[in-house]
């Protein structure tokens, strides 16, 4: 995460604002941010195919609203916001489409993790994914950004529009629930 924050430079933003260099600069944005955004989305929706669709929608929305990006926030913050909103919208749509309750969704997510062929982790890592999948949506987001991306609470606060204190509390609760999940499964 620290890597892409460093890439969020003023030069790229300036080129995005210039009509003649905008498309070329956006191409660089895609190359720089597609992987971190992909991982963030994938941890939410689990399926590679769904992640691919959401990632495309994320960049399309960013492109369509590029003139509204004023540079007040960092480029990465703005892109993460779009990606997270797209992920949450997708999960809500899926829930409505399938008529799933929150509990059903949890078991559905675990089923997706088991069915996922694009994995390269040990049993413990797989179990942690399952534990994270049992978390409420917001706690899952906070845990993913803090644990996997090592994101600072201030940055998370900008992306999610929540206070740092609330985020810390949310992460603490998430860790407790994961701990409980491991204790119950042993």
């Amino acid at each position, binding site marked *: 995460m620290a890597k892409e924050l460093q890439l969020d430079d003023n030069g790229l933003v300036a080129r995005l604002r210039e009509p003649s260099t905008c*498309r070329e600069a956006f191409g660089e944005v895609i190359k720089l941010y597609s992987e971190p955004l992909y*991982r963030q989305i994938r941890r939410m929706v689990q399926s590679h195919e769904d992640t691919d669709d959401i990632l495309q929608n994320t960049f399309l929305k960013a*492109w369509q609203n590029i003139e509204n990006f004023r540079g007040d926030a960092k480029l990465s913050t703005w892109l993460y916001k779009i990606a997270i909103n797209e992920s949450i919208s997708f999960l809500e749509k899926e829930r409505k489409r399938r008529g799933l309750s929150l509990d059903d969704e949890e078991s559905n997510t675990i089923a997706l993790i088991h069915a996922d062929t694009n994995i390269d982790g040990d049993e413990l890592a797989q179990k*942690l994914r399952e534990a994270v999948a049992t978390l409420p949506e917001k706690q899952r987001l906070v845990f993913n950004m803090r644990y*996997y991306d090592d994101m600072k609470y201030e940055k998370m606060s900008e992306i999610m529009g929540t206070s740092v204190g609330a985020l810390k509390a949310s992460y603490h609760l998430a860790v407790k629930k994961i*701990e409980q999940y491991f204790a119950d499964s042993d």
Partner: protein
Amino acid sequence: MKDILTKVNRNDGMTVPDGYFDDFAARMMAALPERDWEKPQPKVMPRSMWQRVRPYIYLAAMFMGVWCMMKMFDLMRADSSGLSIDNNPVMTAALGNDHFINDYFIKECEVNDYQLMEELYETGFDPSAYDDELFEENADSSAEIPETPEFPLSKI
């Protein structure tokens, strides 16, 4: 719990198909719609001198036309007052002269003798009162008296 988290690699273990991100960037760039500022702007042809001054020329011509029309109406009004009979002393004198009326005006209007005689009869004219006078005038001449005497307008 801390033990578990330290044991688990921070890599989430999720993999992607080979070359996915390179392919994704290319696909994404191709899928980006063209924005307004990227569309080629239509070429604006420079306007010629005539195209620039044409509206002003037309406007000036229109004003000239209106001015000419008003001037013409003004001249016509002045001429009509000059043509009035009351303002023309020659016409007034001519119309006051009986000889002129009889010799030119009535003739010009092609009033024939019959119409004149009819009008005279209506006003109580008696041609027999002039018979002697006519005979005396004709007695000196060798000319024969016509069966249907003519009445010269100048004698009436």
